[in-house]
């Protein structure tokens, strides 16, 4: 047994990996708990080894960074400083300062309970896609932008032959170019925002030469693959009998409202829709961490307001892999210092800190530009299913609001069951909030994922009651 302090890191994406490596290099025993079979998270998602991809780097940017993380993890694992638990799905973290229990489910059916005890926790749980429904969104052939990208990166499967990529946000570019590079015909990239608005934020952009270069590279790829870009347009409806056959797109005016007479039909068999990401905050919320809007609130050391709990990456605010790396690194160094009973010197991570500041500014600017069009909720027809788990339509939500006195998402949920199903409102939450006419707030989910009752019943007794 070792006397070294023990950190549990939840999530092996960029933030979790950077945090684990930084802490492990400074005398902390680390257990890295992750749901995937391999490290990397969503950003560095790896093709399954059995597929024998010869050039997985062709699908990734920043392959060198990934190699550095991967090799670092391997070294620490070999040296016994890091324990990497793959295929462990964390459903709850409980505890108070200095004594945490990370409860996970293991195995393909996720039926076996595992508990990891630690002195501190770093939450690097990443984000998930914001889904906004529209008529026809449940047709087979309609996928999320991230889903399409995950298929490209992980399974190397081409989701369809003729694709439309739509929604808003910087993720649409790599999805469109990725699909095109993989051999799909990308009929259009439909972006509801006006990317020219970014130009007005030039000072922030100028500080980001790397990001500019990346954007320019993607634009070049779009041109190369002949992808038609439709800025200030939106998908109004997806058509098809049994599966997707076409989409109707229309132009938007400056206020985000449909421009009459601009609707046109584009035949396609795949529609990848993305409206940006939302942070996973369930574990943090149950631990009692304060949120700021949809994000876990952290200080300069990436500490939450619950002693012993750090957070980094998308869970503290959507900002991409480079920001996650910086935050994870700072978190890992702070954990190491604090667990050794010392106060860390922020000057030691000045480089990461500067890059964190710049990237946060950059993504704040992106956020301001890439917002869903103003009337998206009004355009959801009454018969459109908004909660797929419980099959709740937009009409049912509107009735709860108009005639039963529901003015918030929780009451709508109680009166319609929207958000009570398997996904616990992760998919329909933004849609229900939009239809209810209130801002989206993260739901309270004590269980971050479904837990077999047998696992609950067999939980270890707590040492302190």
């Amino acid at each position, binding site marked *: 047994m070792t006397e070294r302090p023990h950190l549990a890191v939840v999530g092996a994406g960029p933030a979790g990996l950077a945090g684990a490596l930084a802490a492990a290099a400074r005398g902390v025993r680390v257990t890295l708990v992750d749901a995937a079979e391999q490290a990397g998270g969503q950003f560095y998602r790896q093709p399954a080894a059995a597929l024998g991809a010869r050039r997985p780097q062709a699908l990734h940017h920043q392959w060198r960074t990934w190699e550095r993380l991967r090799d670092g993890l391997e070294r620490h694992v070999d040296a016994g400083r890091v324990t990497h638990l793959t295929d462990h799905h964390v459903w709850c973290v409980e505890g108070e300062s200095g004594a945490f229990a990370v409860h996970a489910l293991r195995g393909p059916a996720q039926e076996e309970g595992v508990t990891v005890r630690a002195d501190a926790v770093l939450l690097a749980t990443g984000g998930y896609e914001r889904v906004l429904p529209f008529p026809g969104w449940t047709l087979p052939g309609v996928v999320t932008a991230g889903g399409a990208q995950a298929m490209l990166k992980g399974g190397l499967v081409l989701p369809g032959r003729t694709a439309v990529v739509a929604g808003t946000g910087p993720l649409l570019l790599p999805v469109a170019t990725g699909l095109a590079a993989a051999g799909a015909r990308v009929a259009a990239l439909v972006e509801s925002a006006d990317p020219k608005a970014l130009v007005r934020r030039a000072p922030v952009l100028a500080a980001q030469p790397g990001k500019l270069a990346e954007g320019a590279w993607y634009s070049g790829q779009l041109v190369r693959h002949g992808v038609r870009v439709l800025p200030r347009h939106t998908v109004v409806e997806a058509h098809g009998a049994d599966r997707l056959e076409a989409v109707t797109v229309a132009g938007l005016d400056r206020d985000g409202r449909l421009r009459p007479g601009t609707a046109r039909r584009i035949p396609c068999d795949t529609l990848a829709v993305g409206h940006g990401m939302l942070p996973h905050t369930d574990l943090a919320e149950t631990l009692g961490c304060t949120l700021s809007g949809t994000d876990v609130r952290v200080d300069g050391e990436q500490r939450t307001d619950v002693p012993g709990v750090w957070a980094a990456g998308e869970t503290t605010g959507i900002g991409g892999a480079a920001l996650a790396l910086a935050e994870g690194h700072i978190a890992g160094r702070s954990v190491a210092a604090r667990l050794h009973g010392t106060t860390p010197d922020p000057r030691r991570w000045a480089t990461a800190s500067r890059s964190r500041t710049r990237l946060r500014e950059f993504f704040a600017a992106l956020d301001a530009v890439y917002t869903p069009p103003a009337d998206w909720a009004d355009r959801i027809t009454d018969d459109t299913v908004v909660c797929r788990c419980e099959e709740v339509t937009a009409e049912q939500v509107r009735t709860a609001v108009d005639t039963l006195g529901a003015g918030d998402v929780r009451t709508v949920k109680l009166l319609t069951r929207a958000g*009570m199903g398997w996904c616990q409102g992760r998919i329909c939450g933004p849609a229900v909030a939009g239809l209810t006419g209130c801002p989206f707030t993260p739901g309270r989910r004590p269980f971050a994922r479904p837990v*077999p009752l047998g696992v*609950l019943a067999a939980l270890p007794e707590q040492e302190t009651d």
Partner: protein
Amino acid sequence: MVGAACALYAARTGLDVRVVDRGPVAGGTTGAGEGNLLVSDKEPGPELELALLSARLWAELAGELGASVEYEPKGGVVVASTSGTLDALTDFAAGQRAAGVTAEPVDAAGLRELEPHLAPGMAGGVRYPQDAQVMPALAAAHLIRASGARLHTGRTVTGVLRAADGAVLGVRTDQGDIHAPAVVNAAGTWGGDLAALAGAHLPVLPRRGFVLVTEPLPRMVRHKVYAADYVADVASDSAGLRTSPVVEGTAAGPVLIGATRERVGFDRSLSLRAVRALAAGAIGLFPFLERVSALRTYAGFRPYLPDHLPAIGPDPRVPGLYHACGHEGAGIGLATGTGRLVAQALTGKTPDLDLGPFRPERFEATAPPGTNGDNNR
């Protein structure tokens, strides 16, 4: 829920009713409830009489509101695992029968017929056909709508307006005054705070309960099924954790498992100790649940008074103030009867039941100094 029922029955006597809530409809304990309409768990006495009255009224309302409140007269089954508890349960049921409850003894073979997935080896049980179920949030919303009362949600009562002689003139809210000669306190777990605004002492306290909700399943549990020690728990004065699982299927598919009983104030944070006990208890009754997933768990705060009876009726200390709170874990079930009694009190009719045991001023002797009298805060 209790406020909604009061609004409905008061409106039906011809009164002009307004419902004021600082949150949304069903935003407090109602929204965290399971919707139990139980007679089975009550010993003979005033609460059981109220439960029987309420059960009749619920059945009436169900005919009127139809499926919109998900009323299900599915009946309850109380099981005993040993012959010792079965004897106690059988005696208890005999007393209930004398008070007007339909309670049918069931032997071990009969239990398997009623609930095929029940754990083997149970000694026997009692079936209570009068136990029923509603979806509480829907019930509250639809009762208010049916009442025609004006609904002011998101509006906080900050004071009770009173005349020089102490009589109620209405309420002060964060969005203006509402004038009325009568104010009904149906603030549930927060009923003590509202009473205090009128200068009356009413010691309502929270008792936390966790409920577990499973993934949707085909109907595997047909009744409300619980273990015999639940009956002992309800009347318990223990501050510690008391768990005896009530397991039931719902119209929507999920199985509900509840509920724990703890006195920990308004602490909403997850207690894995509590949900572990719930899960273990439920699996003890229905072994198939071991592999069924819980999708969520949530806490609610039952409003209880020291003698475990609600406060119902006029407050002689504050003319014009009526109480309808403190129903502990039975507020959904007892709401209709409470609403009827309050409406009768408001209109000067003879109530269906003696309000004596529910007198709101019955805790006067225990009042700490300075919490009663003319303190107008």
